């Protein structure tokens, strides 16, 4: 099915099942511990051996020699895989560095060996007996120092320009020119990267924790040099990914190689301390933003430049993306530059581009509003645009940023905000309100599904779509139930298996809308098959387990009485996303309390108002948004991979040193979804929401800290050491 015209009324609009806040259908499996994750397929895999990954101890250089003798002689060891003995290996299209290093080392903790043993402890013990003689060479690890050497990326759209930014900025009566930095960040998902692999003849059977099944098949095949048809990859449950599991990682490739070498099924999980330097991360950025405006607060010029780094052949963090679209302004420019850094591979993390971009832009907007003496909510509303500002002939498909800001301000009680920073005190606390816009583009991508109507009337959906905790199982079941007119409990959903039709996968907040649209396409075909079988017209009505047309009223299950009906299709897209800019919008409101003595920031309350098309399931969507807001709190206040600029690695590579928010950091979070549909996005009229929730959060908190303290911090995270020198003097009360 091709989606190339705006959606009109369709069976989803009935909203008998879709749009309801139903519980996750896979919830009981998770709460009872019976959902099997990649490391847990004990039922299917007899006597697995355990693999332990050894990471490189240098950041750049080569391995002169590896002495495996002691490790081989250690108890229980079955095999040791190194680049020396693994045979020729390719590199996946989605990988920047190779997944098994040696003799060349591209980054610290790049995998250089896998020890396979009878037990995990034996494998770990033996891995520590491997002696490696390295030849280190100097590398580049500091973005600030590498900035001058950064160059224009070869691919993508690094630069844009409209009008005459330079002249317009120079002529603007009110100007802002400020530089912001965001640090390297780690996904730090709950479940580590993990895989279980076995060889069935020349076919690799692998369970791995991966967001994109088809990408995974392709890159495993390419890395191992085997046909894609010889890879059966399964990823039915994933304990969080956030972009860190978009791509096949060392655990999958090494489990496959280990299983081949040991002639046994092999399980590999990356130990937590290895994950931060072995896998991918969101790269640090340096961002310069210039804004020129009239005294009345109309933006006349806006420029956003961003610098980031990656290994050779890598990509930039597209931190200027939102600035091309978010605010009006006739004269504008954006530019991205990429430096070569010898840290681990930089790549996507929840809302790549917009998440760090909005961290900078939405402080800049706050600063500009302050310079102008205009309320920051009003300043944003005044500079709204309903068209792509770089291409004014392209309207937004739907854009309700102004509603989000206005409704949010009302609900939050924004008008109680003291216009003067550092002006509100509650006992020991300095109190501040902050606001930021939320913005994230909506991506639509081809997605397929197969749908079966069984003799018992049960509808079964099969697609290689993944559920990374987002609720895919549930919204896909809701979609199929709505389309086939059956109750939710009569739908079975099977996901994450490369035997199933290729889906959108989970990433870039494209999965919810795209994968359900694919199910819509397959169900449309199944409805036709059912109607044909029953001798009913193609426009028959499916509801309440019945198919009705004219005076005919038949149970849907009757169509499968003589055998299961199967339909398969995919949704693909025309040019509606070219003709219309499709984005999602929101507004974040935050109240923080900053300890007047110590500078400790505690978030008191948060509100997000989101406009993201039809919300397929308000409960799972809310979970996505509050999870993203929580991640935004981490970005604002604590998350920071600290680079050892001499040895070239992330120092705080565990969950004690890399501080994500804990429960005590997160207050009650309010989420409001505006009631809207976007007929340009898909027949579901939905858009992504999972990444919208993080975009802008950190800036709203940084702005609230400024409002509380009067201190403007432009370098994330906003930790107390950046405030303490500039906090108001403490009143030294006399002894009472």
């Amino acid at each position, binding site marked *: 099915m091709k989606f190339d015209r705006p959606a009109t009324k369709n069976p989803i609009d009935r909203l008998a099942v879709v749009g309801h806040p139903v519980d996750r259908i896979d919830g009981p499996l998770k709460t009872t511990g019976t959902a099997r994750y990649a490391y847990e397929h004990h039922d299917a895999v007899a006597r697995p051996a355990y693999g332990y990954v050894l990471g490189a101890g240098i950041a750049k250089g080569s391995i002169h020699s590896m002495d495996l003798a002691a490790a081989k002689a250690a108890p229980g060891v079955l095999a040791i895989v190194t680049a020396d003995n693994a045979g020729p290996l390719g590199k996946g299209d989605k990988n920047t560095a190779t997944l098994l290093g040696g003799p060349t080392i591209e980054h610290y903790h790049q995998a250089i060996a896998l020890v396979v043993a009878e037990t995990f402890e034996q494998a770990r013990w033996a891995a520590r007996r491997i002696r490696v003689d390295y030849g280190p060479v100097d590398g580049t690890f500091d973005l600030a120092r590498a900035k001058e050497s950064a160059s224009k990326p070869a691919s993508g759209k690094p630069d844009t320009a409209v009008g005459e930014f330079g002249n317009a900025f120079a002529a603007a009566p009110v100007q802002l020119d400020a530089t912001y930095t965001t640090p390297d960040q780690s996904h730090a998902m709950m479940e580590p990267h993990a895989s279980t692999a076995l060889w069935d003849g020349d076919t690799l059977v692998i369970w791995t924790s991966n967001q994109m099944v088809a990408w995974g098949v392709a890159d495993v095949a390419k890395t191992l040099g085997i046909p894609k048809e010889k890879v059966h990859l399964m990823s039915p449950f994933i304990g969080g990914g956030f972009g860190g599991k978009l791509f096949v990682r060392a655990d999958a490739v090494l489990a496959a190689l280990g299983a081949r070498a040991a002639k046994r099924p092999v399980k590999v999980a990356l130990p937590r301390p290895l994950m931060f330097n072995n896998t991918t991360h969101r790269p640090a950025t340096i961002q310069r933003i210039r804004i020129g405006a009239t005294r009345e607060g109309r933006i006349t010029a806006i420029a956003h430049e961003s610098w980031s780094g990656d290994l050779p052949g890598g990509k930039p963090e597209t931190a200027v993306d939102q600035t091309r679209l978010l605010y009006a302004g006739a004269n504008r420019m954006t530019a991205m530059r990429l430096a070569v850094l010898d840290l681990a591979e930089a790549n996507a993390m929840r809302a790549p581009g917009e998440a760090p971009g909005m961290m900078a832009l939405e402080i800049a907007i706050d600063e500009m509003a302050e310079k102008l003496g205009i309320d920051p909510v009003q300043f944003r509303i005044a500079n709204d645009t309903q068209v792509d500002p770089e291409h004014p002939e392209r309207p937004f498909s739907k854009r309700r940023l102004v509603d989000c800001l206005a409704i949010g301000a009302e609900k939050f009680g924004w008008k109680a905000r003291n216009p003067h920073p550092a002006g509100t005190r509650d006992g*020991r606390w300095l109190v501040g309100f902050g606001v930021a816009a939320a913005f994230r583009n909506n991506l639509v991508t081809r997605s397929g599904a197969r749908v079966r109507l069984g003799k018992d009337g049960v509808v079964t959906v099969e697609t290689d779509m993944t559920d990374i905790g987002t609720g895919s199982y549930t919204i896909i079941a809701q979609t199929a139930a709505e389309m086939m007119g059956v109750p939710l409990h009569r739908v079975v959903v099977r996901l994450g298996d490369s035997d199933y039709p290729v889906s959108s996968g989970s990433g870039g907040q494209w999965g919810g809308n795209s994968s359900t649209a694919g199910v819509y396409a397959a169900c449309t075909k199944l409805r036709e098959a059912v109607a044909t079988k029953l001798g009913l017209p193609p426009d028959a009505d499916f509801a309440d387990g019945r198919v009705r047309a004219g005076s005919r009223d038949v149970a849907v299950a009757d169509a499968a009485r003589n055998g299961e009906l199967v339909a398969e299709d995919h949704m693909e897209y025309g040019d509606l996303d070219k003709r219309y800019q499709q984005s999602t919008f929101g507004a974040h409101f935050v109240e923080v309390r900053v*300890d007047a*003595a*110590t*500078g*400790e*920031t*505690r978030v008191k309350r948060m509100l997000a108002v989101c406009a993201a098309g039809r919300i397929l399931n308000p409960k799972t969507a809310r979970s996505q948004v509050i999870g993203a807001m929580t991640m935004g709190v981490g970005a604002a*206040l*604590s998350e920071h991979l600290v680079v050892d600029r001499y040895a070239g690695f992330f120092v705080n590579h565990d969950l*004690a040193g890399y*501080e994500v*928010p*804990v*429960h*005590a*950091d997160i207050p009650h979070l309010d989420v409001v979804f505006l009631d809207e549909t976007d007929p340009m996005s898909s027949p579901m009229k939905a858009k992504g929401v999972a990444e919208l929730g993080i975009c802008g959060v950190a800036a709203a908190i940084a702005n609230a800290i400024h409002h509380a303290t009067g201190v403007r911090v432009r370098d994330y*995270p906003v*930790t*107390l*050491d950046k405030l*303490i*020198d500039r*906090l108001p003097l*403490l009143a*030294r*009360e006399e*002894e*009472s």
Partner: protein
Amino acid sequence: MHAIVGTSDACIAAHPSDMAVAMRVLDAEVETMRADGSTRRIALADLHRLPGATPHLETTLDAGELITAVVLPSPPGGTHVYRKVRDRASYAFALVSVALVRQADGSGRVALGGVAPKPWRDEDAEKALSSDPHVVIDRLLKDARTSPDNAFKTVLARRTLDAAIAEARIVR
């Protein structure tokens, strides 16, 4: 975040405990037992070592010697405050902590955590507590060796002591 006093060229690690800081200000002792069954008492002040050139030796315990009890003397009276400062609200070591015992006349005791390789207290310096608390901090941190990353701890220690004193006044 590393220590700023009591460090050496071999080690700048900060002692991360909260309990030991509070025990230090309360003049606690530990009871120990050696492998041969013999026992002794060690004052908290003497339990932890500074790193010097032997950073691998963190305490004065012998090999095989276990702490079997913590002994607290009679309560010193006054108001007791333990103020721990950290960016994350929980599950984080102190950037700076202050253990304060404050008597009604403003005198008292102070130990700092997060600034040194052991709980940091100076019984002589804390005599200034009633007249000028900042003098106590200045003397505790007078030999501070800071880097740009942890220089904030000197300011933070002062402000945290101020906050602890204010809290003690309210509690009282």
